[in-house]
């Protein structure tokens, strides 16, 4: 999956350094209230939350010290879009 590369103003939980990066879904965690609505006191819609795994090579590129190490991040499904070939080592 690719994390959407959007940078909208306002409260977004999806880390900026992962936007536009490609990872693979390690597991699905179930529905959780959308923090983008909770942050403004709005009624929050329950959305699927995914644990997504990224390689350091994907996140940091040539600057990566340990390219095959991975990092997991929990990202709501509306921030993910299908991508070609996941970078699973």
């Amino acid at each position, binding site marked *: 999956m690719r994390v959407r590369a959007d940078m909208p103003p*306002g*409260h977004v*939980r999806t880390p*900026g*350094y992962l936007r536009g990066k490609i990872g693979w879904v390690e597991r699905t965690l179930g529905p959780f209230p959308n*923090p983008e609505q*909770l*942050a*403004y*006191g709005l009624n929050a819609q329950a959305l699927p939350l995914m644990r997504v795994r990224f390689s350091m090579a994907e996140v940091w590129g040539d600057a990566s010290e340990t390219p095959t190490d991975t990092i997991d991040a929990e990202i709501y499904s509306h921030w993910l879009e299908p991508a070609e070939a996941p970078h699973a080592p």
Partner: protein
Amino acid sequence: MGGGAAGPVPSEQHDFSLWEKRVDALMIIASSKGHFTVDGLRRVLEDMGEDAFETMTYYERWIASVNQNLIEAGVYTTAELAQRMTQVAARGTTYGEAASD
């Protein structure tokens, strides 16, 4: 923050002052009463921008965020807050009666 160099991470424990404990308690009370969520707290903290993280302490940022959220929730107005701050300032630089115990 934001991938910038943060220097060494201190591992020793440190004591919190009374006002810091009160800020923590206020956050828990206000959110348990439904005035805002931890997401609301984070939103205001992140909106403060980088400078706030250089110039304000952890609980100074927290009380600013709690205050902003409580005003947005309509718990009190800025005018009411100003009036209360004047009353507190009139006590002097200590905690007033609490400090004389």
